[in-house]
């Protein structure tokens, strides 16, 4: 039977609730699933009605925002419906007196960034900068996607509108910057990969745009040595680049870099940035980068598919050791020393690269995470690998709680079933 026929009767009900244009029969193999329907419900009632119908038909959906990270997490072979969030566009509020905004989950972050910049006349920024230009706000929050500038999407969120799998619209948090009224459910939804509910909109705390900004780089052998510079008060971004990565950036900028390097963005009040820059000017081999936008390059590099990529967390004291282990296992490393985060990637093409490459990088990630007293996630891997291997370090000790949460929020398993850690 075709994928569309599989969901035929459901399609009728969905058309009645959402209107014909929001429902389309398709034949699409995505994420190990045979999808027969694409739906794009609007906010509030429409999304709720769609989820209720999916629940009644016990038909799981694959939730998709910009689709830049459709391959993050485990595949969702049971899904039959593609639920697009692009129409989740409740009205926007930018309160530039209070430095907060309510933004729609279905909109692309690059558009929202521009909107906030315009409304606030350049005074406020959205503290989210995931790789992937078409990333939506909802996708970025659901994937807890960090970028070079902003490490923790959870810290930006004040409140969320979430429609649960039952179709019930709910709200948590609020618009104020401090709030302990009830459980902090926003923390639970951020990073839940769309397995507990669908995010419709979010109250975010904005960040004042820095007055001054400068980018520098200097040769630094390992990420632990980069720590002091990374932790300086005016450093907004500090990225340590292993030899190959530094060479890549060098080529982009028309510079010749032979060894590993530290790239920093100083940002903030002008006098502090100037003082810090003077210190940089006195460093051996340091150079100010005035051309191009190295931060955008970093973001784009992180977003470029390489086939195989892991993110490892490490304590500061173990950074050098962790980077060494990852390099020994064949990876190119990009580390954010101040936040103990290392991205390791290798070029991998299914059918060309062998299983040994996969085994090697996974082994490296496991050893590295142990050395760093941290954890790891596989952020990018071919479907065949994600079908059989765990993508989220070792979820075992917390698996019972993960399952209990899924059972509570999505008892029929209709939202991205299997995608989360431990295939929850």
């Amino acid at each position, binding site marked *: 039977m075709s994928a569309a026929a599989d969901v035929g009767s459901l399609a009728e009900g969905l058309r009645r609730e959402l209107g014909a244009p929001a429902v389309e029969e398709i034949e699409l193999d995505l994420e190990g699933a045979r999808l027969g329907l694409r739906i794009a419900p609007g906010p*509030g009632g429409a999304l709720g009605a769609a989820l209720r119908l999916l629940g009644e038909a016990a038909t799981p959906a694959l939730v998709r925002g910009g689709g830049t990270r459709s391959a993050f997490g485990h595949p969702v072979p049971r899904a039959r419906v593609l639920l697009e969030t692009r129409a989740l566009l409740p009205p926007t509020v930018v309160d530039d007196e209070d430095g907060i905004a309510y933004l729609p989950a279905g909109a692309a972050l690059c558009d929202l960034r521009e909107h906030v910049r315009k409304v606030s006349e350049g005074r406020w920024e959205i503290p989210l900068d995931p790789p992937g230009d078409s990333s939506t706000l909802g996708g970025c929050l659901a994937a807890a996607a960090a970028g070079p500038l902003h490490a923790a999407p959870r810290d930006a969120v004040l409140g969320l509108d979430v429609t649960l799998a039952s179709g019930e619209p709910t*709200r948590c948090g609020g618009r*104020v910057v401090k709030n*302990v009224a*009830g459980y902090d459910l926003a923390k639970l939804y*951020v990073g839940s990969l769309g397995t507990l509910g669908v995010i419709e909109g979010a*109250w975010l705390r904005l960040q004042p745009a820095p007055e001054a900004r400068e980018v520098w780089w200097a040769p630094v052998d390992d990420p632990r040595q980069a720590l002091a510079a990374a932790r300086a008060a005016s450093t907004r971004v500090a990225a340590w680049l292993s030899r190959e990565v530094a060479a890549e950036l060098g080529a982009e900028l028309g510079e010749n870099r032979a060894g590993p390097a530290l790239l920093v963005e100083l940002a*903030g009040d002008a006098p502090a940035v100037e003082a810090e820059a003077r210190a940089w000017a006195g460093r051996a081999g340091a150079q100010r980068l005035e051309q191009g936008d190295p931060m955008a390059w970093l973001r784009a590099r992180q977003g470029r598919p390489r086939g195989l990529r892991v993110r490892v967390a490490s304590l500061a004291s173990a950074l050098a050791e962790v980077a060494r282990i990852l390099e020994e296992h064949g990876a190119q490393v990009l580390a954010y020393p101040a936040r103990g985060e290392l991205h390791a990637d290798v070029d991998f093409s299914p059918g060309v690269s062998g299983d040994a490459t996969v085994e090697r990088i996974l082994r490296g990630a496991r050893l590295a995470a142990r050395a760093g007293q941290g954890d790891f*996630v596989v952020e990018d891997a071919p479907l065949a690998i994600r079908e059989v291997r765990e993508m989220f370090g070792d979820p075992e000790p*917390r698996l019972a709680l993960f399952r209990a949460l899924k059972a509570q929020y999505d008892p029929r398993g209709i939202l991205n079933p299997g995608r989360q850690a431990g295939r929850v």
Partner: protein
Amino acid sequence: MAPALEDELRQVVGSSHVLSRPEELLVYEADGLTHHSATPRAVVLPADKTEVVQIVKRCRAHGVPFVPRGAGTGLSGGALALDGGVVIECARMNRILRIDPEDRIAVVQPGVVNADLSKRVAPHGLFYAPDPSSQQACTLGGNVAENSGGPHTLKYGTTTNHVLALELVLPDGKLVQLGSATGMTVGYDLVGAVVGSEGTLGVVTEATMRLSPIPERVETLLGIFGEVVSACRAVGRMIRSGLVPAALEIVDRRTIEAVEASVYAAGLPTDAGAVLIVEVDGPAPAVARQVERVREHCVAEGADQVQVARDEAERQRFWRARKGAFGAMGRLAPDLYVHDAVVPRRKLPEILESICEIGDRHGLRLSNVFHAGDGNLHPNISFDRRDADEMARVLAAGEEILRTCVEAGGVISGEHGIGTEKRDFMGLLYSEADLEAMKKLRAAFDPTLVCNPGKLFPTTRFCVEANPKARGYDQVPLG
């Protein structure tokens, strides 16, 4: 309590660490919210996590609920043992297990007192940022449960921004590790869910805290204003301009009068309408600039005077007015009701006027000392709970204040939590569905509701009336 359970608990922790005589239980009848009380069946003081596991298992086996407790400084009745439960008091679990200056982390037991952690790590140039005004007494376990904040929350965030990992005894007695020392989350963010859960998801037995570097330079300013609303407007100007001071605190006239009449006297002018304490910190060149900007904003809103602390002694003096406020208020009446609500910051001037009007109309001694930079209000009502009429007026005014804040797009607690105090006001903010979503989290951790029951959720008597203006949603209609 069933004697069998009491005996079992004595076996677990030793006889001297189980309290059950009425006179021993007296201090556990309330926390800092003195007009809510409940007598526990017993109080158990475990020495370590293995004892906590045993206590939880024994309580469960006997069908007796249990409540974790730190120092009992909570202000929402969170540590009360309702339904004849057992209090698990964490005071003996008060060791700092590990300090790692390079990694900037500390691993602590839950009974460690907040201020002690900063003291211990200061020689390494580090501090623990969340600084509730009760920091000399309250415990880190209590802070985690309440997601406590303090004057420096504006720049540094609340407890949730500083907890990397937790060890938790679940309500079924299993011990789990959540998060990691690096702060990385794999799967659902369970640390984020447990912080602020008011002791209803399990007993925290260990926590890994993030430490922050002591800033290179700190400057403290005192702005003296004729009217409290002008001080509020100065705060609005600073926020709007993108300035992020470390602290922005307002002390109103009535509080100044109480402070100046007490041992905390800081030499403030008692005819001032309010003082605004502003602290800026960071790299020296940035701080010098910020001091000037703060001064300009204060002057622009009509400050009579702006002083910059010349030395540490003067800095302490400025802060004395803020930190001594609760103590000073203790002189005014036998009881003090410290309210806690948050409003959008730009609404501070009008809300503050409304709050004072509410207090006056109910004939109450109401004063304000609050975290203005976060919009976090603390209307304090001095009263005597033995006076039934006054007590009734205190409660009526409190409810009106909460409704006013919610109407303005605010919330009913910024740092003290819901506990028993505000459980019946949760419906002002949340719909039935919102509350059901919270109950799902609760059910995943504690399906049988044995851990700190009776807190946070409305009692059955109460009906939900979620206000469309709550949390600013009049601007964003729900589907």
